[in-house]
């Protein structure tokens, strides 16, 4: 049975209070599974604290193929077992997805702000919509598990929209499905829609097509995916009214903790934010502004 399946949603979401509690520990691979073109990697990390949804870690196998560690969203956590959804795009991610059980890995985290669950769930709460593109689905299993253990868990209305390149990449959506099933098992309403660009599942469409068809006033959106998708989601969401959007960004990182100032990202007002320290989660307004659509 795959590791992401059939587990109770046992994660205690720490809220945003995990600053000051990050660690750097030497862990090892507890499991690694291919999910189509993505991989589900689980690290046993002794003493690793509870991560919040949208928080990330730095991973570096020992011995490393790359000089710097790489950043990954925490996709799931069961105590000291932390899981990641990884897309093998370069040497760092390829080394990680080729690791075998017991291979040693340094892990630093949890890092960054993550999605602010209090704000996401603050009344008047209508519906949480999770929008993910490709490996951008990574933070959602943990986010769904946190919703399941939240006070309002059983009363929630949750919609998950995932876009993938093709059916092989879409296999990477399985841990999200599993977490959604756990949430629904607790009584919440939770639905998943999947779009593939090449139409290998359903007709060919983008995740923004799903969003345009589904979005309603008052939806709270948690978004993670490639930059172009994020911008398109923002454009789409602005056509409905009263939506709130939080985006989880990526940037090349070196330190992950605010030391190097390398992960700067331009905000709407022309200022620079550090993705690792000020993010990775930002509001749509701060990133893309409230000005007119071009």
């Amino acid at each position, binding site marked *: 049975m795959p590791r992401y399946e059939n587990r109770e949603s046992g994660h205690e979401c720490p809220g945003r209070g995990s600053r000051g509690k990050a660690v750097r*520990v030497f862990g090892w691979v507890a499991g690694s599974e291919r999910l189509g073109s993505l991989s589900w990697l689980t690290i046993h990390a002794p003493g690793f604290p509870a991560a919040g949804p949208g928080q990330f870690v730095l991973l570096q196998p020992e011995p490393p193929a790359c000089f710097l560690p790489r950043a990954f969203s925490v996709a799931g956590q069961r105590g000291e077992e932390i899981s990641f959804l990884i897309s093998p795009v370069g040497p*760092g991610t390829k080394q990680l997805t080729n690791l075998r059980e017991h291979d040693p890995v340094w892990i630093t985290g949890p890092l960054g702000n993550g999605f602010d669950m209090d704000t996401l769930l603050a009344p008047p709460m209508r519906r949480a919509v999770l929008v993910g593109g490709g490996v951008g689905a990574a933070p959602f299993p943990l986010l769904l598990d946190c919703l399941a253990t939240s006070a309002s868990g059983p009363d929630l209305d949750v919609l998950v929209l995932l876009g993938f390149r093709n059916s092989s990449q879409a296999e990477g959506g399985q841990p999200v499905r599993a977490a959604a099933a756990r949430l629904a098992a607790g009584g919440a309403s939770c639905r998943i829609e999947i779009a593939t660009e090449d139409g290998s599942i359903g007709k060919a469409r983008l995740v923004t097509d799903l969003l345009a068809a589904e979005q309603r006033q008052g939806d709270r959106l948690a978004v993670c995916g490639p930059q172009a998708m994020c911008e398109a989601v923002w454009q789409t969401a602005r056509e409905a009214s009263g939506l709130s959007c939080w985006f989880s960004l990526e940037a*090349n990182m*070196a330190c992950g*903790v605010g*030391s*190097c100032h390398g992960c*700067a990202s331009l905000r709407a007002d022309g200022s*620079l934010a550090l993705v690792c320290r000020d993010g990775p989660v930002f509001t749509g307004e701060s990133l893309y502004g409230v000005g007119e659509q071009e």
Partner: protein
Amino acid sequence: MTFPMQSQHSSPDLIVHLGPLTLAHPVINASGTMEILELADVFGEDVLKSPPVGAYVPKTITLKPRQGNLPPRILETPAGMINAIGLSGGGLEAFVGGSLPRLLTLSCPLILSIGGFSPREYVELAAGLRQALQAGAGDGWTQRVGLELNVSCPNVHSGCLLIGADPGEIEGVVSAVRREWPGLLITKLTPNVTDIASIAAAAAGAGADAISAVNTFKGMVIDRRSLRPFLGNVTGGLSGPAIKPLALRAIFEIFARVEVPVIGMGGIRSAEDALDFLACGATVVAVGSAGFTDPWLTGRIASGLATSLSERGLTLRDVVGIAHRREA
């Protein structure tokens, strides 16, 4: 959290004196690569109570606040990384009012790095810091705080790099700052020159108490998709293990030329690397990019140095500059 054994890395064998400063061990961080207050935010306050560094060096301070260059600003390269941060930070006033008081509570010495866009700016920065320290750091602050002139940043479009490549300019800046700054004065050099030793000699001649080398090597990366420069700033500075052989050569040449102590850096990620720099003539070594992987690396390297020296039956003093002497 794994933490280097304090007993080892403050072992008396490793104590070094850098002018008026006393370091528990010779492994410090390189400017711009370790923000200890950020580390405290992320990992907890312990790092402030027992900092892993022999002395702490914050990011280069500029006179005015600066955002730095447009992203992207960093990329990994073979055995290294390139950066084009371009000196971002809140500027002198914010530093003096914000970080400085907290940094003064650290148990290790502090080395403040400053970068100007003209000789005058260096003088203003030094004077501003001196005033703040005289007011807020108590008597004897010169025994706890040093100043490093970053005349070597490759990522800003005017000012410091040009100064750093010309012995005459160096002399001007160093001697002007020398008049304003009563404490330890370090000059940090760029390796992007034909003859780094003569620049070091100019700095020492003008009153620098120590030489720090090397800053990053000027390089660039091409974006694979667009075939245009990848970095927002077009060029950037290369650091990491890739440059270690080049940095060692620079330290070797500087040590042969000047009498003042040398702070060596460039690609250090292990106690063995640190030994290499000591052997070439560094009195103190600094860890830069490799610390991004492990914020406690400086402490671990200090422990490793202690072990390695005792295994070899050598003292720190024996090792510094040993590569210049014939084998016994």
